[in-house]
């Protein structure tokens, strides 16, 4: 403990391992970058739509598609170079949905490989399996 006369210096870092700090930084950046890319794509899609047509509405459906179908549709359009406002908006939504998924995947790999914490690697694997099944398979 520090004396009252000295400014307090946080010692959390000492009993928290460096590994935990690495993980916090990783999770923080994945979430931050995912949300920022998603927002940028949505804004770009709407701006383009407005400049091209003078209105903002989009009317298309993705009923009957799971995230895999939806994402693949966009990947094909990107490959074909078929860029249009609608594609940017769809990509924005896909990136948003993938953000927590990537966070869970990265956490699982981190627990398994870096932290070597089997317990938590299995917890995150369980979350990942259920989410992947629910989003991509059915």
């Amino acid at each position: 403990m520090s004396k009252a006369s000295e400014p307090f210096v946080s010692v959390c870092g000492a009993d928290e391992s460096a590994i935990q700090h690495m993980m916090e930084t990783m999770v923080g950046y994945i979430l931050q970058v995912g949300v920022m890319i998603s927002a940028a794509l949505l804004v770009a899609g709407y701006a383009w739509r407005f400049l091209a047509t003078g209105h903002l509405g989009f009317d298309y459906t993705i009923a009957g598609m799971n995230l895999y179908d939806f994402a693949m549709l966009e990947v094909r359009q990107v490959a074909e170079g078929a860029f249009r406002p609608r594609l940017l908006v769809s990509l924005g939504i896909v990136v948003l949905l993938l953000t927590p998924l990537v966070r869970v995947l990265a956490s699982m790999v981190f627990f398994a490989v870096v932290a070597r914490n089997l317990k938590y690697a299995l917890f995150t694997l369980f979350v990942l399996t259920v989410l992947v099944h629910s989003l991509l398979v059915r």
Partner: protein
Amino acid sequence: MDTLPVGWLLLISVAAGFVGAMSGMGGGVILIPALTLAGMDIKHAIAASIVSVIATSSGAAAAYVRDRLTNLKVGMFLEMFTMLGAIVGASITVLVSPRPLFIIFGVVLLVVWGAMYLQRNVDWEPAAHVDRFSRWLELKGCYFDQAAGHDIHYEGTRAYLGGPMMFGAGFIAGLLGIGAGALKVLVLDLGMRLPPKVSTTTSNLIIGVTALAGTSVYLAAGLIDPGLAAPIILGVSVGAFIGTVVLVRLSNMAVRRFFLVVLLALGAEMVIRGVWGNL
């Protein structure tokens, strides 16, 4: 279904995100009643709202995690339960008719109103006893408290209670398309004896995965319409951002009184429409 003009969608979403961020209730609680009042079908409103919850919670969680306030292990343990709860909740919403959804939503709003009305500021104290299961889960943590000026050491306890209770919180989140942060914080605070700051920030991390699980059900049911969801995601995010900036400048009491009135009115309105409304 009549489609709302995008301008309206954006306006309603910005307002909902703004109020949600300032009150700490999250956007969905305001967004869904507002969208249904504007004529949107409640299931589409719920589906669009839960997608926007991913954006707002992930944005906030990113900052909190790097401030080292979030307890990642508590979050990743409890996420298993909220995720399953959200899938069950959302599956029920897809199946039932709109009327009970209005009533449940209204009742949840009134319960949140009650909780906020009765809320007392109880000082946090560390758990006196930590059970073996919680110890096995390695729920220890430490953060630097700016206001207190020193480190706070804590350890989560009663994880055997926290897990099942989190299933319930996830269930409500998936069922109603909201973050249900207030419920999650309650479990972390009172159930697992985590310090308030750790509870709020950890609940934010859990909300992202919970909302994604709910979204997966609504996506499979064909209830997510990009033309509706996109402006709502953008609007709520912008509103939430403005809300967090303004929050610092407004007095706490005025803000609280305003939300209590809004919450009461929306809750009563949803119940009344659910019971007597022409849906």
